[in-house]
């Protein structure tokens, strides 16, 4: 069977070789890189611009952004027909292609995030390693932890006042450098689509900017959501501890801190949301007004076939409803969580409508293609380019985050800054 045949339905005249070649994984790819970039920008707001209210969430979103990093690459590897050759993008990069930059931008960004984390956590590494090293006898597990932390210190064990000040400065510089790189990482994902002149829906210079804005929106939304979730878990743990008379903080303290952070962060969310919607609508209006050759078929896709996906799910449920939810005074945790979940849905649908919507019509402008998401996998191909492959990509960052927090604890630490 031809690649793409399993999930493509053709109607009217579609060129014989046309199928929906870019599927759910290519929807997941900008969605996941968007989350990475957004989470990083959020943490930088604190580190660079000193937005004090974001202190609590800054460390959290930095670690989360790190956990998301490998996941931004995962959908690409699942999408490639020859994933074992993926490293060629570093070997023989062809920089006239937007994808060629991926290897370099992605690894640069990864190194920046990793370095920033190293500076933030160096004190933790050193004290833990020293603590374990001081022990007279270590169990095998302790020995493994000791080795890990010793390697992680990279031999820099000086915790003097001056060294820590240097750490802090390095974090600031890296966060500042990281913002443009994060924007570039995601903006270029938009460029991958925006520069395809063969695709009438994709080709617009606004695409990278739209992608960056919605990336920041989705990244902030996911951070708030995950933050709320972890705080709720902590509250549960706390009340359990209180029952056994061992609690350190009160539940109310936690709660007031939580709502403070959520309210502050959601203000930034709204700002970027407005920007994203403005640009998307500008693009739509411009297309309708200029009405070039491709407009006839685009109109029938946008206002006809994809109407529910675009206007109900993306703009309605994903943008308008959370907008109202956030703007009604007296934002509660529950409302913020609902709003963030809807924003995530909206951004996901935006990616869907760009990637799948861009292939919903033939480049003959005389036919349509309909994408049927493979649900139950009957081959490896329908697994990786189907619902379960996408779910796997969606779940991995949380598993990774959980694993990373074993090494880099996010909560209950007051030491470094």
């Amino acid at each position, binding site marked *: *069977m*031809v*690649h*793409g*045949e399993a999930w493509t*339905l*053709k*109607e*009217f*005249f*579609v*060129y*014989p*070789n*046309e*199928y929906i*070649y*870019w599927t759910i994984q290519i929807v997941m790819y900008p969605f996941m890189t968007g989350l990475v970039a957004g989470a990083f920008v959020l943490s930088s707001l604190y580190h660079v611009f000193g937005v004090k209210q974001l202190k609590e969430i800054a460390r959290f979103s930095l670690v989360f952004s790190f956990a998301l990093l490998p996941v931004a690459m995962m959908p*690409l590897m699942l*999408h*490639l*027909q*020859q*994933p074992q*050759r*993926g490293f*060629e*993008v570093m*070997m*023989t*990069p*062809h920089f*006239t*292609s*937007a*994808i*060629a930059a*991926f290897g370099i931008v992605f690894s640069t960004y990864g190194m920046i995030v990793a370095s920033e984390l190293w500076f933030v956590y160096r004190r933790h590494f050193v004290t833990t390693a020293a603590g374990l090293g001081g022990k007279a006898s270590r169990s095998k597990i302790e020995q493994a932890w000791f080795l890990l932390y010793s390697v992680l210190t990279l*031999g820099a064990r000086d915790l003097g006042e001056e060294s820590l000040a240097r750490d802090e400065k390095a974090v600031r510089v890296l966060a500042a450098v990281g913002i443009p790189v994060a924007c570039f990482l995601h903006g270029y994902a938009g460029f*991958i689509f925006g*520069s*395809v*002149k*063969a*695709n009438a829906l994709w080709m617009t210079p606004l695409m990278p900017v739209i992608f960056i804005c919605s990336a920041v929106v989705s990244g902030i939304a996911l951070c708030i959501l995950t933050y709320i979730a972890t705080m709720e878990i902590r509250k549960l743990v706390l009340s359990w501890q209180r029952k056994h008379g061992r609690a350190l903080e009160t539940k109310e303290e936690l709660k007031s801190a939580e709502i403070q952070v959520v309210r502050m962060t959601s203000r930034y969310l709204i700002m970027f949301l407005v920007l994203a919607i403005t640009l998307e609508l500008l693009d739509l209006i411009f297309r309708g007004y200029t009405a070039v*050759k491709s407009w006839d078929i685009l109109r029938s896709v946008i206002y006809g076939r994809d109407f529910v996906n675009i206007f109900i799910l993306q703009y309605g449920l994903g943008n308008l409803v959370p907008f109202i939810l956030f703007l009604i005074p007296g934002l509660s945790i529950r409302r913020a969580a609902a709003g963030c979940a809807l924003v995530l849905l909206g951004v996901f649908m935006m990616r869907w409508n760009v990637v799948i919507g861009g292939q919903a019509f*033939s*480049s*003959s*402008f*005389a*036919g349509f293609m309909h994408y049927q998401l493979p649900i139950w996998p009957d081959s490896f191909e329908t697994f990786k380019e189907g619902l379960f492959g996408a779910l796997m990509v969606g779940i991995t960052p949380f598993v990774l985050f959980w694993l990373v927090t074993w090494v880099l604890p996010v909560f209950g630490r007051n030491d470094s800054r």
Partner: protein
Amino acid sequence: MITRRRFCKNALLVAGGIAMPLAALEWFDPKRLHAERKDAAPVRWGFLVDTYKCVGCGMCVKACKIENETPYDADVSRTWVERYIVTKDGRTHIDSPKAARDGFIDKRVDLGEGRMETIRDEDIEKAFFVPKLCNQCDNPPCVQVCPVGATYQAADGVVLVDRSWCIGCGYCIMGCPYGVRFFHPVYHVAEKCNFCYHRISKGMKTACVDACPFGARLVGNLRNPDDPVTKVIMSERVAVLKEEYGTKPQVFYRGLSREVR
């Protein structure tokens, strides 16, 4: 005093320092970038399609699939033939069932997913066939977007795919406005018409040109002013497909109509 750590560090620095410029400079050697020769190649392959002569028998598609080992029953093809039927009400009906591998035997138009539309003979205003194949563009957008250099344009203008280097990202398929590219069902890499490179480089014609009983297809060297293809292109009224994309296609058509997509 040289500590072990300092020794290791310096050794790595030196090794990396030597390897880096060697490898990095190879990417952008300004001399080689500049060496892009202009119009020096003695051969530039081009193609001429005469839509007046095409009857939609599909022998070209059949021959192409066999010659180039595209799985015969797979619904992809390096070349195909489109049928255009314009009815009196001004509507255009287009189809290319199975890429026209078996020609056009049925009067009914294929609407996809097994649906057929019957058109009455008396409603037909005009009808014709248009063969399609890779345009071997002078500015191939598919080559521009390949992230690893797995597809390229040879000196004679033919765009080829390196099957051992293609990572299968599909960007070139997306980048082609003509829809000529697809994933090969066996090799799982990008696949396209290459003017039967193994034939034209031996002085033969492409399989589709040889298989066409009506002379609707011709391949030739555009650098040779005496080549029949070049003569027609220079002296007659010919058109190319989708000029607005700036791809500079090198497959020329006689008798192209505005309905052709």
